[in-house]
């Protein structure tokens, strides 16, 4: 089934995907409610943009990108003619009622069923229409077209847009995960604070100018500094079947580490059920030797695995093999934390219980992960 085309819906979706704004359908419906209601007059492009900003722009720093996406989309899904984009309608003009978006709530019709037909907004209205005054003139009317294109060029553009469109209409948001990215980053703060400042070769122009103005001369050049983390973190992710449901969660954890400590400080390896030294893999499938035995061993190993808690199994062999690996890691002086996405109540009847006696195991949720800085401080 083709996705129904609603006014500014693609724009709304792109705000969620590209700007990461945490918007829900309720907020999209608010736009329709205000726009259709007609109490807030929409007579110019900027009025519609302002309304979208008032309802959706929850982060001030994203204003520029928000506007850019808006204009990209209004020229696409909703074609609005004011004569030209550059000559906005004067503010004192009467408000022109919006379209009824649900009239077009149906799959996109094939081209030969009139897809190229351009209909003026006024004909699509279920609400009483504003009278077109002589002063306004026909060229000043606003025409809104949904699911239709204006000539062959527009058809091509539409097809290109569809190619770029997201494959799925379902958008993953970290609000569905047991912990928010922001809170995760707070937990890595302790590691981040251990970073040191390193002088780079890039000139710090503003400091140079400041010194020049203050001292009347420049005896030495000022350089920019970069925060470098001395902490090396190895993340071991269980890629077995029972962990499929937690793929996004593991990704979120790794992303938060990257953002807090930088790409260089983090290594990610994968294992299957048991984090054994001999069976660790890179993302591209190459097997690697146990990094905790190398000279540049990590300071912290994070193991992300359900430890059998998803299926509720107890495998003696796996428990023994895991214990052996954990002992090796601990013996090499590395701090090991096991992050388990399954709730603690499920650990009881599985291998997780046995392993939780050997290594600090935390359930992946806000409350449990809050302990990380305190645990690391004690090491």
């Amino acid at each position: 089934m083709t996705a129904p085309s609603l006014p500014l819906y693609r724009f709304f979706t792109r705000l969620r995907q590209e700007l990461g704004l945490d918007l829900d359908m309720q907020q999209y419906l608010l736009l329709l409610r205000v726009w259709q209601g007609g109490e807030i007059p929409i007579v110019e492009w900027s009025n519609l943009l302002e309304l979208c900003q008032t309802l959706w722009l929850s982060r001030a720093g994203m204003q520029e990108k928000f506007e850019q996406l808006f204009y990209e989309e209004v020229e696409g899904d909703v074609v609005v003619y004011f004569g030209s984009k550059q000559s906005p309608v004067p503010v004192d003009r009467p408000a022109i009622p919006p379209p009824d978006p649900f009239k077009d709530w149906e799959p996109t019709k094939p081209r030969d069923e009139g897809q190229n037909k351009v209909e003026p907004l006024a004909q699509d209205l279920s609400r009483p229409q504003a009278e077109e005054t002589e002063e306004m003139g026909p060229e000043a009317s606003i025409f809104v077209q949904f699911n239709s294109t204006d000539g062959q060029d527009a058809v091509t553009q539409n097809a290109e847009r569809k190619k770029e469109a997201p494959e799925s209409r379902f958008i993953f948001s970290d609000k569905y995960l047991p912990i928010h990215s922001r809170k995760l980053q707070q937990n890595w703060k302790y590691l981040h604070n251990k970073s040191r400042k390193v002088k780079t070769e890039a000139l710090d122009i503003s400091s140079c100018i400041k010194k020049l103005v203050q001292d009347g001369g420049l005896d030495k050049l000022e350089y920019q500094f970069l925060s470098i983390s001395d902490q090396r973190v190895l993340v071991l992710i269980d890629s077995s079947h029972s962990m499929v449901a937690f793929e996004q969660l593991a990704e979120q954890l790794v992303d938060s580490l990257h953002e807090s400590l930088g790409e260089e400080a983090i290594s990610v390896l994968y294992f299957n059920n048991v984090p054994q030294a001999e069976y660790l893999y890179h993302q591209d499938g190459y097997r690697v030797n146990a990094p905790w035995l190398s000279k540049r061993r990590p300071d912290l190993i994070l193991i992300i695995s359900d430890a059998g808690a998803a299926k509720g199994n107890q495998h003696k062999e796996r428990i023994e093999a895991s214990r052996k690996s954990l002992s090796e890691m601990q013996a090499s002086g590395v701090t090991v934390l096991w992050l388990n996405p399954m709730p603690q109540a499920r650990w009881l009847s599985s291998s997780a219980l046995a392993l939780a006696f050997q290594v600090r195991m935390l359930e992946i949720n806000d409350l449990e992960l809050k302990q990380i800085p305190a645990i690391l401080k004690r090491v």
Partner: protein
Amino acid sequence: MVNKKYTGEALLAYNAEFDLDPYFPSEELIRAIEVARLLKRPLLLRGAPGSGKTRLAEALAFELYGEKYQEYYFRWNVKSTTKAVEGLYQYDHLLRLRDAQMQRDIEAIQYWELGPLGEAFLKSFDESAPAILLIDEIDKADIDFPNDLLDVLEDKNKSFPIKEEKGIVIEAKATPIIIITSNDERELPEAFLRRCVFHYLPFPDEDRLFDLAEAYIQKHNPDGELEAMLRPLIKYFKQKYETMEASKTTDKIVSTSELLDWLRVISFYKPYKSGEIKVTDEGLEFKDGKVPYPEVLFKSHDDWKSNKGK
């Protein structure tokens, strides 16, 4: 008020009767207020200090209710220790316990006192005449405060019980107009943001600063000579603001409150009479190139050192 629309025209000059400074809302802000009223959602106002976030609620109340505005306007100054429930009411448990021990029979109403949010609910007895509540500087509060407010901010929740007293419920017939200000000092929870509508107040432009400054001078220390040199003073201030904003080393950017304090000091000591400030064709000229009363404008030692010269 009877469904009166906000136009921003009621307070374009200083109102001596109620001691209200003028307020100049932009077209965009007026529309944002109307959207918030229509959807019955709180308006979250963000912007630089001195951009007029806090004063909007009072200006709105004055325009809607005129001389009775204080009956409908409630202000909740948030502190680091503020709890959401305190906005609804506060209960004197200690007094209640003491009276119970002394077997005093006192009416329950003696033990609780409504907070600003509770007062705004109680006052909103008509859809056409809702109260106006300002929740000022929400970022000062505890991290859980915005989430605790969620239930209260829902349009459908128009009543709350006094939990300590069986059967006492405060009911509002209408949703108050809620304006929340934030200095963007920390991120607010997504769930909270979803229930708000937003507006960002930019720093005032030169004309708006001039209007503010002129009204301020006329109110505090009218002086024709100073008013005549107000334009170049504002121009100097705006340039200083832009320079400090662009600089990465600025500790605290000057805001309108510093401008108004500076003008007040200038209007009191009148340095323009002694030639410390002169207006030339090129703008302002300071004696020996030193800005008079820099301590009023620049609030950190580094900013002072960097900006005290013209």
